[in-house]
């Protein structure tokens, strides 16, 4: 642990946790308490809040978040504990003795009401002009406690300037309630450490290093802070107006690509339980909104697998056969723009490990403005490409200056799941009621391999399905039942898998010009790993730096956000491990039902390699359009 904590961003609130006993039935393992006169037995170390929730006693919270360490700063969850002079924050009180708790005494109710009154008095703006209207925790609390006027006044002038310098995250500190969830997200969950409380007393506010604009600090744009902000203080940079304008402009051909994660989560914005995928319904809704074509990002996910997989084989060939010391392994995935920027800032000496293959979003942009424009005979300058992503960092990615290989801005707008849901609502559409329809040609429906990109481990699983089949000539199903590579799946922060290659087949036509045979891979044990959330990525990177087992890996999938894309910073709010697991379930369920589940079997991929990128993966032309380069940004801010 010491090693990992070295160089860690400063922490102002550590998780003071009393570990719960493994055997609550042993002596001292449990404690008998009383909540509101009712006797309850709970494992020692349970917090008052947990104990109450497990017993269906509602306690209001604001700074508490299931993904984050305890802060105990909003004081809304206070309860009375007999024998204690002051009220206790239930979220931060681990029970170790038989105490008597009262959750709704006059003093408690008054304190909570006062706290809500105080927060509202400094909360600038009106609910109806806020994007979090109806999905705001402060608003719900005000309703819960029947606030019908401002007891302690209401601020009438803004105190801060809105920081919209970043392509991804907009900060409006006048709506901040100082719950510090963003701080804890940035420091503890993601270990990036861009945000921290500055000044004290009534001047306290959340700020960046030397109060610089967000675009100028080492923010990786992951947007995890947005997902956890209880109010409208944090939001993504919203391109809806520009997109509506493009749709309304008859000279523009507006195409939209949808990533798998938004499809698995957008139902939540329409009142559905997490875990309902609305792919077909979304296609119909998007056409009704006025998008000219609706494409599946999974198509370029399949293309990514072909490019990235070939790149990996080339790197391995160079290293294992040619003994070339300049061959850089392990290869890192590059589809998560949050992760990419994290690496560029924190481990810039490793940018050459990143696959040069662009992310599926950016590949699609480049393909649409070249291949598609050519096939459909549309001037690419009249094409507007929109990408629906679960991600705030995708907005930054599409604005990277490198991303103009088609001769135009490859992807014009990155749109988050939340923003798309808003557009659908504005169009008067109730998404769950839409009839289902398919994606548009010429890209059609993609393979399941692309679909599972949405979950952590998905890229690795998709890559392995293809690489195994290309190398061995055998079906993946002969090794993994139903081609589900289960060791790679799950939510464990870091996962490591070894796959010995015992037999090899013949090299497929498409790769023959690179490799005469696969014999050099025979007997090699393929070592791969998966990490999600930059805190876990950091563990792997530190291990690589120290020459540990991950430095021996061949290929590592990194995702910037906990849970992978389905937990992205553009996804519906709220988020929790439970919600993310349900979204993953929806993705894997949808995938299992697809007819094609391997990237190299996608006929549209074959078509594009035959008719457009006809020199195959990692060829000159594909390098021009589908590959990119990275920037060594470093940690230091000028």
């Amino acid at each position, binding site marked *: 642990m010491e090693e990992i904590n070295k160089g860690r961003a400063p922490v102002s609130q550590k998780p003071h946790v009393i570990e719960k006993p493994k055997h609550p039935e042993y002596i001292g393992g449990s404690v008998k308490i009383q909540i509101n006169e009712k006797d309850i037995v709970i494992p020692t170390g349970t917090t008052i809040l947990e104990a109450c929730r497990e017993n269906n006693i509602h306690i209001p919270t604001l700074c508490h978040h299931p993904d984050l360490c305890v802060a105990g700063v*909003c004081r809304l969850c206070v309860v009375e504990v007999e024998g204690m002079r002051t009220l206790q*924050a239930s979220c931060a009180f681990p029970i170790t003795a038989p105490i008597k708790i009262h959750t709704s005494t006059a003093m408690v109710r008054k304190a909570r009401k*006062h706290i809500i009154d*105080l927060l509202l*008095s400094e909360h600038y703006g009106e609910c109806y002009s806020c994007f979090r209207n109806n999905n705001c925790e402060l608003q719900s609390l005000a309703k819960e406690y029947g606030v019908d006027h401002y007891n302690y006044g209401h601020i009438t002038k803004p105190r801060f300037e809105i920081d919209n310098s970043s392509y991804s995250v907009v900060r409006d500190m006048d709506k901040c309630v100082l719950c510090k969830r963003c701080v804890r997200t940035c420091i503890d969950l993601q270990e990036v450490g861009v945000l921290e409380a500055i000044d004290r*007393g009534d001047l306290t506010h959340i700020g960046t290093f030397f109060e610089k604009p967000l675009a100028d600090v080492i923010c990786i744009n992951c947007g995890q802070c947005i997902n956890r902000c209880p109010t409208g203080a944090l939001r993504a940079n919203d391109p809806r107006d520009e997109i509506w304008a493009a749709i309304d402009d008859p000279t523009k051909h507006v195409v939209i690509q949808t990533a798998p994660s938004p499809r698995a989560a957008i139902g939540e914005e329409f009142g559905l339980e997490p875990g309902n995928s609305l792919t077909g319904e979304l296609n119909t809704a998007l056409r009704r909104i006025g998008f000219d074509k609706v494409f599946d990002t999974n198509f370029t996910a399949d293309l990514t697998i072909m490019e990235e997989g070939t790149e990996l084989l080339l790197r391995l060939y160079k290293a294992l056969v040619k003994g070339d010391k300049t061959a850089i392994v392990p290869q890192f995935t590059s589809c998560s723009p949050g992760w990419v920027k994290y690496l560029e800032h924190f481990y810039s000496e490793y940018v050459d490990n990143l696959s040069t293959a662009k992310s599926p979003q950016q590949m699609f942009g480049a393909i649409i403005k070249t291949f598609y424009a050519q096939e459909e005979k549309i001037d690419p300058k009249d094409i507007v490409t929109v990408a629906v992503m679960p991600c705030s960092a995708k907005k930054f990615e599409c604005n990277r200056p490198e991303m103009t290989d088609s001769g135009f801005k490859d992807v014009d707008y990155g749109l988050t799941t939340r923003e798309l849901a808003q557009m659908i609502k504005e169009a008067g559409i109730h998404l769950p009621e839409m009839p289902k329809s398919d994606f548009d040609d010429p890209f059609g429906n993609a393979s399941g391999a692309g679909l599972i990109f949405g979950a952590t481990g998905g890229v690795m699983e998709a890559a392995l399905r293809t690489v195994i089949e290309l190398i061995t000539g055998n079906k993946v199903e002969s090794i993994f039942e139903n081609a589900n590579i289960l060791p790679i799946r799950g939510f464990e922060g870091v996962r490591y898998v070894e796959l010995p290659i015992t037999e090899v087949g013949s090299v497929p036509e498409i790769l023959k010009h690179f490799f005469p045979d696969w014999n050099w891979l025979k007997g090699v044990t393929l070592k791969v790993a998966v990490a999600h959330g930059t805190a876990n990525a950091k563990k792997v990177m530190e291990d690589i730096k120290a020459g540990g087992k991950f430095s021996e890996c061949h290929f590592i999938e990194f995702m910037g956000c906990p849970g992978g894309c389905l937990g992205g910073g553009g996804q519906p709010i709220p988020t929790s491990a439970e919600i993310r697991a349900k979204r993953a379930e929806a993705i894997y369920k949808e995938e299992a039902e697809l007819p094609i589940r391997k990237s190299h079997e996608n006929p549209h991929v074959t078509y594009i390699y035959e008719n457009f990128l006809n020199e195959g993966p990692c060829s000159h032309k594909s390098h021009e359009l589908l590959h990119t380069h990275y920037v060594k940004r470093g940690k230091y801010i000028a």
Partner: protein
Amino acid sequence: MEIKKLERNGKIIFSEYKRGGGIIKALSMKRDEILFELKDSKLKGRGGAGFPTSTKWMLTAASISDEKYIICNADEGEPGTFKDRVLLSEYPELVFDGMVIGGYTIGAKLGIVYLRGEYEYLQKPLEDYLNEMREDNLLGKNILGKEGFDFDIEIFLGSGAYVCGEETALIESLEGNRGEARNRPPYPVNTGYNGKPTSVNNVETLATIPHIILKGAEWFRNTGTDKSSGSKLFSISGDCDKPGVYELPWGTTINELLDLVEAKNIKAVQIGGASGFCYPKSQFDRKLAYEDAATGGSIIIFNENRNMVSVLKNFMEFFVEESCGQCTPCRIGNTKLLEGVKQIEKGVHTFSYINKLRDLGKTMQVASKCGLGQSSPNAFISILDNFKDEVLNYNNGGANGRN
């Protein structure tokens, strides 16, 4: 000089003491004998909260850990308090001997003095003093020949936030973090500095301990009241002829104290600093003691020419600035209280709103995260209660008499 003689004259702390005396005695005792002696003395923390020192040490001693710490809280920041400065500059032997005894009793190898940033000028002389102690083997390895008892003291200069006098905020600050109070439980006695058992004691508490060890609990208990044993250093300032630091037995009445410092025509006494309570003339017969008018030692005297609204405004401005800003009741609550005082000052207040603020103050006392927020409304509430007529009728009774 005469005043100084009057001041440095007390039965306990200012009684005679020779450097190392308490340590020699303590090292001849078993650890639990020291704890029982302290328990018997009924010594309570001199910082203001009045937690029994023996209990704090006992809990730290009982915590199982290879590393433990004893921290001397010398972040003397309470407005109107300057007794620790006197102890550190004139009686460092008492403070440091107390820390060594503490280290021995709880099993710590390191003691840290968290010295208020403004006392930077004391750092050098204190360091020199520590070096002398090292030379005399009062610090270092196998202290005074006691096999296996290694102990040393470091001085850490604070960074100037009032909240860092709160023990958990102090620990955060020591660790290099933003000075913000932690959640409790767990308490520092289990999870303190670097997550290890830590006893944080006030300068005066530590300075009292060598005397108790040397002269016995009974001798100590002979001074003071039943519930408040011993004596207390009072930092007395304001409208009097002889301000300064006085050692008085617990149980001294406010009147007696005012006579001693020759204070005349007094309207109010603020006891316990900005976070304490304001007492009117009618309560001057009250005793200074944990069970009555409790205090960490700050006494601020106001005569009849003082304007209680501006006194209150001064206190509230202090808290608005010095709240660490993490918890809602303290951060915004103090701002609201100050706004209320400003309304009174301008004469635009309404009685009902001021009452609402008093109610809010009651919430702050119970719902704030740490002692700062819990005690910051004390001045507001006590001045409002005890000087109601003066405050509420200020400026024609506010709101043009529409109350």
